[in-house]
């Protein structure tokens, strides 16, 4: 039992550390804060690094890890066994366990700082032990060990020492220097920088009181006991250090269209901060950037909701898988398209204008179409009631619906939308006829006073068995039968849905007008629902995986199983973007479930 408990959390730590190593290795110590520069390129703090360990060791996360085949393979690998034997050996020498050792060494906090000195990075890592005596003992023991090892091999002493103002510094290579300063372990990437840190520890903080962007974040982190770590990157310095971090003014038009002001903020913001929290039931990450100092240009201001405005509230029909909700004034952005897009993209837009004219009776796309559409955009994805479908498609796809608010008093436009829907159906049928595919049959139904324009594909005809011949095996039903494209108008809201079922389910939800949220954009995904979708399509996905990746069946099954487990564990995720006058915030929250 003991080796197992030892093996798995440690591997988890190694696995995690390799992905977010800067965070995993860092911590906050109140005294260390004064030993690093206020305007370092990167500053990371963790007041309770051991929280990470606690979360890793929690039964729910361990159960999740147990479901990952890659992780299992790592645990069973010779490489891992060798590493853990070494660590166990050292822990035994120190008369402790590896877990205990970590808690004792870093329990008091962690700080990681990267400054730029003479164009080169000067890195400082400060670990504050909760048991200073253990640090001293471990340090001595490890030095002895290294020296004894070198001596045994006939090598010179591998550790150089030097005193600086009464504190002994140690160095094992030209790129490492460390010392124990006021009971804390300070590790740097050069002896010169170690001296600087020691000077600061003895003489006090350089550059006066810390700036607000640091203190505010520290206070925030303190107020939330689930904070693992937080950090701040000075984008200005980063851009100056390496131009590849600067986002060019000219960028893919699609990205500009979608993320306009956010890219602008990333181009101009002096810093960005991030915080990671891990609680019992959820993991969150938050990124914040200040708005450009001189504000957004007129063009980008058009992307920002005015006070009281925001993305419309999410919709939760039966079996909802995901929601995307966005506040965006496309009509206003359309007016300044020449400033956002390069000429070749404008040409595409001009064609859209021309195309829209055909479908909307000559209306101009900006003032005639977009202006009638309002600012509330929603995309809903939901599971379908596959058992009740007829015929049941072999691959089971979810239903999608685009939900758009329209101008309240433009009945002519609402009508145009319905006609446009019917034109599309006609066009699709024309294409289908050329492809010899079955056509869509149109109809309509009324739900709760709302008329839904419906369509469905004609059902495939089962081949009739001829007398004397065995009945042909039923063939898998084409994926097109997932779709029964529908459109409807509920109050001022127009809905274009890939399936009748979802349109029906949305009717009652749209009877009351959508409330505005404070965020600009919200993306919300239910991992469990996605996992169910993976499960019902599993045999197909396994075959696709075999073909696309060249895997054999066992490997393909394990990869799809892993995907399912991940989705179950991250049972629900929400990502939001909020624009305020002074800053831009991205927020990610993942609810944790179980892998099974």
């Amino acid at each position, binding site marked *: 039992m003991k080796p197992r408990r030892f093996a798995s959390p440690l591997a988890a730590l190694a696995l995690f550390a390799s992905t977010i190593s800067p965070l995993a290795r860092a911590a906050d110590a109140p005294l260390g804060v004064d030993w690093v520069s206020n305007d370092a390129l990167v500053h990371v703090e963790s007041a309770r690094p051991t929280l990470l360990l606690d979360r890793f060791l929690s039964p729910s996360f361990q159960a999740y890890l147990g479901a990952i085949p890659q992780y299992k393979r790592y645990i069973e690998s010779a490489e891992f066994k060798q590493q853990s034997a070494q660590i166990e050996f050292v822990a035994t020498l120190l008369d402790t366990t590896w877990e205990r050792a970590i808690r004792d060494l870093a329990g008091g906090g962690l700080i990681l700082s990267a400054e730029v000195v003479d164009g080169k990075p000067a890195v400082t890592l400060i670990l504050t032990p909760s048991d200073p005596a253990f640090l001293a003992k471990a340090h001595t023991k490890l030095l002895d060990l290294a020296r004894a090892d070198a001596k045994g091999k006939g090598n010179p002493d591998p550790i150089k020492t030097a005193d600086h103002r009464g504190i002994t510094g140690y160095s094992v290579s030209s790129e490492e220097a460390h010392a124990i300063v006021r009971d804390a372990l300070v590790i740097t990437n050069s002896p010169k920088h170690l001296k600087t840190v020691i000077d600061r520890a003895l003489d006090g903080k350089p550059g006066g009181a810390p700036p607000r962007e640091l203190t505010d974040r520290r206070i925030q982190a303190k107020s939330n006991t689930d904070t693992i770590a937080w950090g701040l990157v000075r984008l200005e310095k980063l851009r100056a250090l390496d131009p590849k971090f600067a986002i060019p003014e000219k960028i893919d038009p699609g990205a500009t269209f979608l993320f306009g002001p956010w890219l602008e903020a990333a181009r101009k913001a002096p810093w960005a901060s991030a915080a990671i929290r891990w609680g019992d039931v959820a993991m969150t990450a938050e990124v914040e950037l200040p708005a450009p100092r001189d504000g957004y240009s007129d063009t980008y201001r058009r992307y920002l909701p005015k006070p009281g405005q925001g993305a419309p509230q999410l919709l939760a029909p039966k079996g909802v898988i995901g929601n995307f909700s966005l506040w965006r004034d496309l009509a206003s952005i359309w007016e300044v398209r020449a400033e956002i897009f390069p000429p070749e993209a404008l040409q595409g837009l001009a064609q859209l204008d021309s195309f829209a004219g055909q479908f909307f009776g000559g209306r101009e796309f900006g003032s005639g179409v977009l202006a009638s559409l309002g600012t509330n955009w929603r995309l809903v994805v939901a599971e379908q009631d596959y058992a009740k479908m007829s015929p049941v498609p*072999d691959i089971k796809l979810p239903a999608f619906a685009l939900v758009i608010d329209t101008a309240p008093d433009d009945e002519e436009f609402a009508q145009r939308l319905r006609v446009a829907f019917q034109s599309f159906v006609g066009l699709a049928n024309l294409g289908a006829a050329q*492809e*010899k595919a079955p056509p869509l049959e149109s109809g309509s139904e009324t739900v709760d006073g709302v008329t839904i324009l419906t369509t469905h594909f004609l059902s*495939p*005809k089962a*081949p009739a068995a001829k007398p004397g011949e065995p009945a042909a*095996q039923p*063939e*898998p039903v*084409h*994926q*097109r039968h997932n779709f029964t494209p529908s459109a409807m108008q509920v109050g001022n809201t127009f809905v274009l849905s890939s399936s009748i079922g979802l349109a029906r389910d949305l009717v009652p939800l749209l009877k009351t007008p959508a409330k505005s949220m404070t965020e600009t954009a919200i993306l919300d995904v239910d991992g469990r629902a996605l996992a169910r979708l993976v499960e019902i399509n599993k*045999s*197909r996905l396994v*075959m*696709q995986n*075999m*073909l*696309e*990746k*060249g*895997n*054999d*069946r066992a*490997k393909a099954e394990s990869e799809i199983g892993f995907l399912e487990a991940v989705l179950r564990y991250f049972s629900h995720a929400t990502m939001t973007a909020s624009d305020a006058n002074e800053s831009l915030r991205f927020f990610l929250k993942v609810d944790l479930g179980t892998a099974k």
Partner: protein
Amino acid sequence: MNSLPHQSDPARAWAPYEPSARDPWDLARVAHLHRRAGFAADWSTLVRDREAGPKAAVDRLLDGESHARDGQTASDFDALLAAMGSRLAPGANASVIQGIWLYRMVLTPHPLRERMTLFWHDHFATSLNKVGNAALMQRQNDLLRSQAIGDFKAMLAAIGKDPAMLIWLDSTSNKKAKPNENYAREVMELFALGRGRYSEKDIQEAARAFTGWFVIRDRWSEIPSQHDDGPKTVLGKTGRFRGEDIPAILLEQEACAEFLCEKLFRLFVSEVDPAPPALVKALAKRFRESGYAIRVPVETILRSNLFHDASVRRRRVKSPVEYAVGTVRALEATKPTVSAPALADACSRMGQGLYTPPSVAGWDGGPSWINTTAMLHRTNFILALLGKDDEALGGRIDPAALAERHGVAPLEFYRDLLVQDALAPAALPTKTDARELAVLVAASPEYQLA
């Protein structure tokens, strides 16, 4: 230029080859057998079959191995591929159904059956580009496979009712008032007899026999009221023929077996030497007398003196599919194997998109596979397969480890595995790493030939 041995001595040419001191059963012969009758063998198979002798080696090709390359039993593998075909093909794009077939070729326990299915696909060439329905193409492929080394009579009868074929030849509505001659023409010209072995009148009369055959909602159907039940005269036979009667009339023609045997000669013996009529006639006689059992001429050729004569080696240009699949198999990129859609795209770039032959006459084959673009793509395929950068094709083979696993030095290993005695020793550097050796051998002109 070599000329074929035993040109005018069919008995000698088709007599079973017996190893002798002069013509030993050596690696070059084993590799030749697998190149032609399958898609190149891996090292273990070559060594095994060299030990087992020619009879056992050919037996295994004719009957198939017990296990697929992914370790499944042959029947489990067939069931898996049947499921892939029926479930993934509907609505799929070209590279997906191409991929399903290539995945099968790469891992198949029965390479000769796949090689022959490919032969029949070229013979009954039908293109997805026009048919537009991948499921129908897959169904046709299943049909061709089911009789690939089986009964040509049954195959010819079934292909006439195959929806993909009929859509391809615009023969989906054969009305009494306006018989469609297209299928009647192609079945004589390209599928059974060859040009000049029938008259226009034969086509017109046969077309009347096919009246009443329709394709309705992707299925073959018969509308009796549209059938012209008057008497017809086709190739000298007269009767109130129906569509089902036509194949039998074609098969009675001596030209039929000869036409097919000439194609088999080109497939297995030589693409560049004209097939000696005496040899074709003798082979055709056996084929006809067997009642058109495809296995008979195939087996005759694969066991024959002529086939195993050193002079017929490399008298064919590998088609892109033979080249790509053969290389993947020989280099044991099987666990995991390459991405099947990516392999399909690579074959298309080299000039052979499965299910999309250029015309009803199939691919021209031979030297027409070769042009600068195609050669560039052949080398690029090898570079991708043996490199690490291409996620879909590369990173699956460790050339040094592969040679080591078989206990052979890299230079000898890649030469003997891929080209045997064909590549001049001076063409390969002696001091270089295993990967470069593998690349050079697989990109060599000699390796482009089968």
